[in-house]
């Protein structure tokens, strides 16, 4: 299916990899495939993979991409898959300079995939895994029929955002472990290792006693509760508790696994694209551009980084913020002394003449080291939270906009740093998706499922919520409830398999086993600066 890489491109791929390594990038082996436009559209519709399970949503995406291309509305330049080896695609009718840019960009992504912590738990053999998923689902299609399987996939896809992205990095209480089955399984208070004479200072008795009490209370609370605490990974809760046939459970598991695989890409869009753009820019301008290619390169580079009103371009935001960090660390614009400096002139000129001239400053500069650290540990939320500065917001001409209730138009509100930062963080946190928890799997002792939304200032879309509730009911079998807050009033949405109802929540309604307030996320508080 693939067109072979020409000798010229193969040589470029090797040379650019060398340049990238010499700058400190570290990536898995990268395999470039050359595709025709139609093939690129197909692979892109499959989310970058050559094999996916049969489903109309891929056909829908394919049609959109094809239309977009046919009418000149857009063109895909690059596509990379987080896999070991890394797979990347080149469009066969692109000019050589475009291919070189894409390669450099791809090595940037490759380095990010391999080194960024948020990707550390992703399956690096996903190419194979996706093909396995496809095979398994095709087998179910043969066994139970296309329509049945497709309907069930639709149901699962409607719940695919109900996962707990952080669970990959921490050990949440396993649902049953809070209630000890045997006395020796009972948890004990954490005791830090200490020499005997230091023990009463390092592990003070009253502290230990308090912790013991907490454990006892938790165990007491958890008796008979399922889940023992609010659970964000609703897909897991359904997998473990819903009455599913084996093929249904497997499909739900597949959808969940793929959702977890794609989740870090959503969490690091700005950083990932910024990092890749930083590197294609650095590598192209330092190593590989021939004079006559410059204009074409510049045109496409600036096209990639173009901004339009009302939209934040992740490529632009990412690369600019990384360059800003590099510049700040090269000129010493960080630390207490700098933070406390309130003289804007002094801040602007801080460390002037200290750092190396120009932007490209080699591998060993403190700024370069800093951005390598940043790409290792941060995701978009922490990246902006930590490094967005008033100067940067000013330089990038960022503004906060909202709908004018009188005219319905989107209008600029202001350029206030705090508001902009808060808005950006809100848009990025949890993907701008609501927080929904499973609170009780045996509500009113009738085997009904009770979900709750943690309200962080924005109401749910009622129409969509009711439809989604139907999807959950199809899996759960028994009636399902959703506790949401609409216009500051707590409302209970219920779907029992035949009809949906909603009612205001008051004391007369029995409470579920857990409440959203006991969940693991702190309420939205003003962000301190």
């Amino acid at each position: 299916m693939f067109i072979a890489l020409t000798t010229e491109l193969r040589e470029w791929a090797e040379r650019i990899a060398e340049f990238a390594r010499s700058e400190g990038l570290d990536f898995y082996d990268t395999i470039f495939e050359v595709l025709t436009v139609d093939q690129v559209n197909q692979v892109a519709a499959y989310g970058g993979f050559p094999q996916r399970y049969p489903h109309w949503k891929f056909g829908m995406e394919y049609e959109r991409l094809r239309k977009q291309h046919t009418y000149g509305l857009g063109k895909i330049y690059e596509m990379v898959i987080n896999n070991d080896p890394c797979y990347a695609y080149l469009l066969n009718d692109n000019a050589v300079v475009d291919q070189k840019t894409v390669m450099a960009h791809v090595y940037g992504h490759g380095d990010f995939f391999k080194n960024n912590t948020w990707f550390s738990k992703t399956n690096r053999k996903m190419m194979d895994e996706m093909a396995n998923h496809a095979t398994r689902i095709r087998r179910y299609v043969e066994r139970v029929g296309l329509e049945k399987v497709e309907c069930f996939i639709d149901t699962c896809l409607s719940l695919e955002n109900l996962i707990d992205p952080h669970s990959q990095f921490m050990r949440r209480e396993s649902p049953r472990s809070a209630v000890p089955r045997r006395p020796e399984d009972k948890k004990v208070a954490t005791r830090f290792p200490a020499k005997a004479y230091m023990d009463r200072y390092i592990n003070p008795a009253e502290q230990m006693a308090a912790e013991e009490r907490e454990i006892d209370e938790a165990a007491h609370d958890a008796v008979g509760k399922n889940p023992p605490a609010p659970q964000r990974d609703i897909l897991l809760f359904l997998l473990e508790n819903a009455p599913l046939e084996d093929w249904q459970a497997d499909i739900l598991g597949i959808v969940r696994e793929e959702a977890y695989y794609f989740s870090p890409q959503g969490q690091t869009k700005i950083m990932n694209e910024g990092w890749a753009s930083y590197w294609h820019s650095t590598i192209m301008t330092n190593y590989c551009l021939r004079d006559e290619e410059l204009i074409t390169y510049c045109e496409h580079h600036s096209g990639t980084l173009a901004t339009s009103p009302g939209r934040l371009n992740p490529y632009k935001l990412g690369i600019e913020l990384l360059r800003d960090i590099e510049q700040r660390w090269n000129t010493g614009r960080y630390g207490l002394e700098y933070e406390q400096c309130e003289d804007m002139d002094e801040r602007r000129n801080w460390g002037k003449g200290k750092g190396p001239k120009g932007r490209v400053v080699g591998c060993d500069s403190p700024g370069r080291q800093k951005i390598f650290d940043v790409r290792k540990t941060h995701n978009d939320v922490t990246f902006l939270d930590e490094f967005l500065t008033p100067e940067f917001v000013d330089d990038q001409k960022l503004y906060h906009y909202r709908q004018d209730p009188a005219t319905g138009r989107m209008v600029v509100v202001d350029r206030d740093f705090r508001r902009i930062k808060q808005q950006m963080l809100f848009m990025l946190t949890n993907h701008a998706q609501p927080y929904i928890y499973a609170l009780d799997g045996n509500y009113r002792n009738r085997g009904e499922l009770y979900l709750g939304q943690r309200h962080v200032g924005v109401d749910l879309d009622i129409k969509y919520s009711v439809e989604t509730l139907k999807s959950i009911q199809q899996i759960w079998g028994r009636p399902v409830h959703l506790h949401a807050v609409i216009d500051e009033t707590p409302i209970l949405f219920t779907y029992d398999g035949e009809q949906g109802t909603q009612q205001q929540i008051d004391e007369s309604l029995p409470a579920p086993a857990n409440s959203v307030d006991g969940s693991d996320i702190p309420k939205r508080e003003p962000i301190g600066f």
Partner: protein
Amino acid sequence: MKIHKDHQRFRQIVKGKIREDLRKFLTRGELLGREGKRIISIPIRGIQTPHFRYGDNNDGGVGSGEGKPGDQVGEGDGPGGTEEGRHITEVEVSLDELADILGEELQLPRIKPRGKQRITSEKDRYSGVRQTGPESLRHFRRTFRRALRRQIIAGTYNPDDPRIVFERRDKMYRSWKTVLKPQSNAVIVYMMDVSGSMGDEQKELVRLEAFWIDAWLRRNYEGIESRYIVHDVRAGEVDRETFYHLREDGGTRISSAFRCAKALLENSYPADEWNIYMFHFSDGDNSSEADSRECCKLLKENLLPQCNMFGYCQVASAYGSGNFINVLHEHLPDEEEMVTSRVNGKDDIYDSIKAFFSKGK
């Protein structure tokens, strides 16, 4: 390719042949095109599976660029997407292409001009570039890029004084191909009710609908003329600008518009030389039964026999009774030239266009 099976299946769902249960999740208008200065959403069908998601009562977003508080932000669509590693650029599309997309999406047949076979006319279409040509056709962007490139290679480009001087060999000109097209002319007569009950919202719907009507008819005919008539209890011809912005108070007498249109056609557009399209937009709140009857009579005897199509588009309004559409159905049940549609919101516009043009007339 494997994707074709998925694609086939998707098309069948959209057409309503299978999976009826998904039809309520059909969406439209995902692709954004740009025609001149305006951004246009192109109808492309999609299916959106429901998710728990936030409603629209959120706090807006963050953008970048110039602008004072209170300035309108471009018709952007919220925060940047979260698609996986790929990059899509936005380009301008011509009105012709937009019309093609519309035609394909709504599966509209090409219009067959009625009457005698017309004379074939020649038309030039710009289709490429070449190195010779008249200065008036110089392609500035291409020329500039070649000159810039030449200067950079020659080492005469100075970034501190970025002056680009064209030389003869830099210049690129648009070139054209001559295509033969059947010559046929059409006139569109737009009529709108501007009585008190037609508010800004209704006018916006009319404007959008008229934009697509224009686009589609222009794609199908060589020469198009548009005429505009507004009415409340009296009617008069106005220019395009006035048509969309005039606001009157008072009652509605639809027959006045029809009479005005009749006079217009008699004076300027004989039916054997022109393909005639008439569209009437109203909230359907005519002042009296008698006038409604008068309207039907005018339509039946004078207007319908002359025109390719008479489209009546009833826009929902908070005030109007919206009865006129029923009157038309009742009194003129079998008129092939007459097509009616109701538009309650932006989403209905495409259905309305489809209703108007699906017969290919």
